[in-house]
């Protein structure tokens, strides 16, 4: 499968990354004011990632604050030569959101296909209107095993390339692809179960 994310023109991309690099150097040199433009530039993507990952606006707000306070005190850890700032921030957000939600990795050998659909997915209300469908999808994403959730949220919703996700999660490119495939398969299965149960309820009524 081709890399699904259209990359911006090289010149534009380099200019953006260079500005982030300058601000990060200023932060590392002890100029805290440099955090303000970085926060305004990247707060949205960090917040959305944490919210879609955790399914909680409160956790997302806390994680966003944690990430930028971390950047304030540890800007010297960012290496502009290794890539843009936003994947680095998402990597930190991933660690913080996992810590705050207390999630665990699926044990090796544990079959993710055997996971039951989240119970609250199939309620009479969820399939009646599009709004409720999105809520059901949100809950289903939050119920995915963490390592599937990582790649699904980053690729499908945060618009990161496979290469960036591989760097953020410390994975091989093929592992990103296979985890995304399985995450989508799991979501599709849960949504199909939901549709079936909704249809059964409708015909019974």
């Amino acid at each position: 499968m081709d890399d699904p994310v259209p990359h911006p023109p090289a010149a534009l991309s380099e200019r953006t990354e260079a500005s982030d690099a300058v601000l990060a150097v200023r932060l590392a040199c002890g100029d805290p004011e440099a955090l303000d433009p970085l926060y305004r530039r990247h707060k949205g993507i960090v917040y959305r990632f944490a919210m879609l990952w955790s399914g909680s606006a409160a956790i997302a707000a806390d994680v966003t604050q944690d990430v930028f306070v971390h950047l304030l005190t540890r800007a010297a850890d960012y290496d502009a030569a290794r890539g843009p700032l936003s994947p680095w921030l998402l990597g930190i957000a991933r660690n913080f959101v996992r810590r705050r939600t207390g999630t665990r990795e699926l044990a090796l050998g544990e079959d993710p296909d055997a996971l039951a659909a989240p119970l609250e997915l199939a309620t009479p209300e969820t399939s009646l209107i599009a709004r409720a469908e999105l809520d059901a999808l949100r809950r289903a994403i939050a119920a995915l095993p963490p390592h599937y959730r990582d790649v699904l949220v980053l690729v499908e919703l945060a618009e990161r390339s496979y290469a960036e996700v591989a760097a953020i999660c410390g994975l091989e490119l093929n592992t990103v692809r296979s985890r995304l495939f399985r995450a989508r398969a799991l979501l599709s299965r849960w949504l199909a179960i939901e549709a079936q149960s909704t249809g059964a309820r409708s015909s019974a009524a």
Partner: protein
Amino acid sequence: MDPRHDATDPLDARLGALKAECAALGPPPATDRAIAAAIARARRYGAHPRRVTRGLERWLAWPLALAASIGLIAVALRQMPAEEIVAAPATAAAARFMPVVPVTEIERSGDAYVVPARMPRMALAQFGLPVNPARAGEAIDTELLVRPDGAVLALRFVN
């Protein structure tokens, strides 16, 4: 609809809708205020807030810390081989960019680029880093933070 999502696939349709719904979301004003407060705190106390010490304790703190540091260094020097003494401090210091112009000038700079370069190893000495005399003639890999007009803003030694 996002072109990455296939509208005919129910999952893609829902993912596209969810992404569109979340596109304008951002942290609440309370988070903005918390970050502004963290910046103000760092401006006042530095990025790592310092404990304020008073009276005699404040006057004794630096001499005691200096004496302890000298003692630790003396013990370390007695236990480490000569080559390690030369190489170890350079690794930690080399990991971060060091400004070569005043920070105010870096602040004024808009865009900059990271450019790899090779320099004589003796350049380490200009930044207060130790140089092994036996290898002083060799080149060392560096990365320069360069403004579009070519001015070097900061420098980092690689390996």
